[in-house]
């Protein structure tokens, strides 16, 4: 008997290149396409009205396109786990298809639904089409760990077969004899809800700058390619005043909701490149936009705490400030920095900002000026940004706050200079902050520096009509760069004076399993650290080289006598504590106090065998040790998990235990 199918839409809101949907119609008697929406949840969720509108438009477009093949979309009010069992029975379903979701919570949800389906005797077919590659294959190729540098990721990708070709768009032919039973009251029961139904106040809501839907996406990709063909330039376009504005060729929200297949985009780019460049094979950089997305999906797929700092093995622990007032000023475009406020206004109004504008506001919130946790910024983007996907959003925020991925942290975007460089005239600011319209270009990025006469002429007094800057940028960057340097020095165990050498080596050959250090591959000054710590080996300071050696640690080892000196002579855990100290300053930490997760991981893994550390002279040795520990443990993240567990435990029991020890 021909099966009755359900195709379950989540992302992948399209009929083109939808392999799971194709499986659903294959030889089916009946086909129903469903989308689950919990109206109660919708109003209370953290997702803003622009994103909801985009989604509803996608669903309407999907429904419209399904009608063209004599089908409809069934928008089901409720939660999949509650509703599926009833649907299976009611519709006599024997096949369920959906697109693979790589994100940890999606995987968990899907596993539960699969189980329900199996119990109901329903066959489940899952197909990968939200990403170009099977992410698990990338991870497997990297020895079981997701690559943590983009370079490494590119290397792995270049070893894989090219992505699979897009599959045929759903059509009458493909539908074959499959039908969609549609009841009279379909609209009432299964229609796409309106924003009002979801509890949003739509009065005064301006029309969408980014209309949702597959149809729009397919128009845009043609325009996108036409423009590329016209400029015949495949490099990343340089940013200018114009690129800050929403473009009718922009694709990111469409990729996010799967209105546009990334594979279609990939192959269209390839074709165009071959046509324009006369058959030379395209470089990986052509696919930059798609590959970065893929990179973050890969990094996140097995890490349910990818969007957190605590308990996230790849995230550096940074002592961010909790400051709700400052956060609110940033989110509500009241920082007093026109460049930042204009971007945040654009984000709130339209749901999209240029990627360098994202860099600017993210840097300002986190490591640049306010020193507020990237998690808070990520949540605001989650609410407002149309293309914010869990993995990509969290990954980008970790990247921009220098919390992971072996980032150079020296480069801080100036909230005044960066904008001025991009749009010297300040038109972007005038567009989104009309209150500042009267300021001349000279002062529009720092209106607080404008003489009173200029402010009066502009009909905008700073501190009255527009806020004064909320931070002293020069002072804030001085403090923050110093903190980042200390944090990174702890990670890299680099003690010299250089700023650049403080970043842990990205280690081109390693699989970059964790943010662990690889000693000094590129830092000749520090590679001999084990010997320079020998008592007597001190004082070798020289202004040359990146690791200028001596600093006051050595005074320590000269002065300290007694048993601890034995520890100093060997490369022991105690020693490594010393090394992690900020440069030139020697308070000796206690490792029960928090430092960074990766570091703890490194040390908790070897505490019983200080001798092992003795042999660590090269990055290769260090790496192997770590790998073998992980392999031996059977579970790739065990080391870090146990660290997290320990941290949690320690938070609970430490005070009790310590008190007890004193009894």
């Amino acid at each position, binding site marked *: 008997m021909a099966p009755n199918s359900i195709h379950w839409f989540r992302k992948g809101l399209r009929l083109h290149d939808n392999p799971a949907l194709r499986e659903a119609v294959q030889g089916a008697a009946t086909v129903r396409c469903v989308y689950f929406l919990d109206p109660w949840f919708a109003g209370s969720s953290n997702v803003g009205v622009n994103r909801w509108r985009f989604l509803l438009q996608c669903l309407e477009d999907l429904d419209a396109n399904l009608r063209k093949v004599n089908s409809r979309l069934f928008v089901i009010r409720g939660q999949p786990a509650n509703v599926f069992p009833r649907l299976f029975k009611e519709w006599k379903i024997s096949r369920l298809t959906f697109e693979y979701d790589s994100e940890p919570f999606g995987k968990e949800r899907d596993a539960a639904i699969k189980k329900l389906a199996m119990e109901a005797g329903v066959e489940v077919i899952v197909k990968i089409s939200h990403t170009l590659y099977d992410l698990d294959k990338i991870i497997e190729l990297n020895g079981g760990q997701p690559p943590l540098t983009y370079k490494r990721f590119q290397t792995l990708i270049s070893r894989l077969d090219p992505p699979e070709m897009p599959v045929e768009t759903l059509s009458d032919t493909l539908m074959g004899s499959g039908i969609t039973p549609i009841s009279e009251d379909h609209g009432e029961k299964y229609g796409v809800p309106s924003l009002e139904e979801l509890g949003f106040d739509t009065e005064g809501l301006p029309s969408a700058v980014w209309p949702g839907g597959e149809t729009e996406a397919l128009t845009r990709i043609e325009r996108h390619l036409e423009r590329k063909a016209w400029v015949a330039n495949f490099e990343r376009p340089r940013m200018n005043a114009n690129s800050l504005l929403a473009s009718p060729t922009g694709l990111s929200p469409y990729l996010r909701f799967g209105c546009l297949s990334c594979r279609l985009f990939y192959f269209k780019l390839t074709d165009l490149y071959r046509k324009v460049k006369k058959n030379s094979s395209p470089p990986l950089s052509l696919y930059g936009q798609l590959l970065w997305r893929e990179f973050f999906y890969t990094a996140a797929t097995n890490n349910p705490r990818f969007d957190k700092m605590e308990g996230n093995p790849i995230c550096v622990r940074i002592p*961010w400030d909790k400051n709700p007032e400052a956060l609110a000023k940033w989110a509500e475009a009241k920082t007093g920095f026109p460049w930042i406020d204009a971007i945040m206004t654009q984000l709130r109004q339209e749901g999209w900002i240029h*990627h360098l504008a994202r860099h600017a506001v993210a840097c300002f919130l986190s490591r640049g000026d306010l020193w507020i946790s990237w998690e808070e910024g990520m949540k605001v983007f989650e609410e407002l940004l149309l293309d914010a996907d869990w993995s990509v959003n969290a990954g980008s925020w970790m990247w921009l706050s220098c919390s992971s991925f072996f980032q150079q942290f020296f480069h801080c975007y100036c909230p005044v*200079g960066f904008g001025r460089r991009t749009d010297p005239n300040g038109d972007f600011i005038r567009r989104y902050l009309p209150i500042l319209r009267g300021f001349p270009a000279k002062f529009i990025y720092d209106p607080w520096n404008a003489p009173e006469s200029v402010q009066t002429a502009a009909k905008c007094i700073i501190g009255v009509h527009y806020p004064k800057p909320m931070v002293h940028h020069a002072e804030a960057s001085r403090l923050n760069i110093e903190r980042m340097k200390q944090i990174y020095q702890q990670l890299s165990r680099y003690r010299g004076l250089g700023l650049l050498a403080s970043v842990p080596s990205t280690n081109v050959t390693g699989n970059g399993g964790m943010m662990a250090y690889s000693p000094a591959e590129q830092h000749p000054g520090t590679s001999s650290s084990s010997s320079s710590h020998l008592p007597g080996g001190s004082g070798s300071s*020289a202004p040359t080289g990146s690791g200028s050696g001596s600093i006051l640690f050595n005074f320590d080892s000269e002065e300290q006598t007694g048993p601890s000196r034995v520890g100093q002579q060997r490369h022991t855990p105690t020693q490594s504590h010393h090394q992690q100290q900020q440069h030139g300053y020697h308070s*000796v930490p*206690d490792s029960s106090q928090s430092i960074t997760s990766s570091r703890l991981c490194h040390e908790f893994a070897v505490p019983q065998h200080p001798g092992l550390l003795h042999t660590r002279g090269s990055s290769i040795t260090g790496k192997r040790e770590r790998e073998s520990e992980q392999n031996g443990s059977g579970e790739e993240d065990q080391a870090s998990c146990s660290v997290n567990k320990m941290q949690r435990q320690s938070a609970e029991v430490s005070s009790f235990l*310590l008190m007890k020890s004193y009894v």
Partner: protein
Amino acid sequence: KNRRENEVVEEGPSWECLPQEILFHIFQYLPLLDRAYASQVCRGWNQAFHMPELWRCFEFELNQPASSYLKATHPDLIKQIIKKHSNHLQYVSFKVDSSRESAEAACDILSQLVNCSLKTLGLISTARPSFMEMPKSHFISALTVVFVNSKSLSSLKIDDTPVDDPSLKVLVANNSDTLKLLKMSSCPHVSPAGIMCVADQCHGLRELALNYHLLSDELLIALSSEKHVHLEHLRIDVVSENPGQQFHTIKKSSWDAMVRHSPKFSLVMYFFLYEEEFDIFFRDEIPVTHLYFGRSVSKDVLGRVGLTCPRLVELVVCANGLRPLDEELIRIAQRCTQLSAIGLGECEVSCSAFVEFVKMCGDRLTQLSIMEEVLVPDHRYELDDIHWEVSKHLGRVWFPDMMPTW
């Protein structure tokens, strides 16, 4: 853990009889919490837990749930340490979050450290500097307790605190023979006279960090006096308070005296200035080794850097205008023969000039961090070729730094 228990069972008494030295040797590898676990095992191990040697260093973490994500050192533990181990403490640091309460808690602890002799003390603000928020007098009296009681302080890190001239005098009066490191960037209550007093008396000072407004010719002369040891590290932060600020100059002869006295000393300078405030800088030769430009710096200033910084080891430029820095980089490669690290953020350099720069510096460039956007393709090199060319000259694989397109 299982293994350990088994061994205890098999070998029984020998574990209890471990000599204290061995126990100490083991304990020193264990974090505090593990030592606490171990101390529950038997009387001997409990005694070992209290060995003074294990309490030489301690890092107090003072955070409030409302202002920090990190946990704090438990107040009871703090009490116990003060009661039982304060006389053992030698290397102490305080990490405080942005709340005034935390800063005050740190000062409360400090003022109880009366019977100890600290060698190092660090007051570290992990977020917005909170010591600045508290009453100056409270801070000063707490700090002075340490200065007066600890007669052999060698390292002191008190950046972003309200320390003042009189308290530095107390420091000098009690610790002049031992002080080796003093970090006090952004301490607005210290005057040039205050730091002069330190430099005049503390002849063992080897590392010093301060803001530019405290730097003077007299200070450099004092640090290069015959009585003074060789300076190893001088860190200067040049921060503009208000746009258009005027900065004083330092004579070339003073820097020359420094270099004569301490030929190997490192001079690290961080600039956070508006472009127009650079006027007086890099007019004469300056022995700077590490330069960081935190805001946009003009092509002209970078050109002067090439002429006036022969000892330059590291150069980091966060931003520059829209004109390529080609000649400036080439000049730096020619003149700064020690240069081994360079980082460029929002700048522009033509690919050809960049390759030329790398070729001239060769493999002494151990750190080369260039944002991809910096490199402007030209008739000779496309972006895709450049990493081969640069890698060839460096003798190792090199790529520009990339930022996600998101």
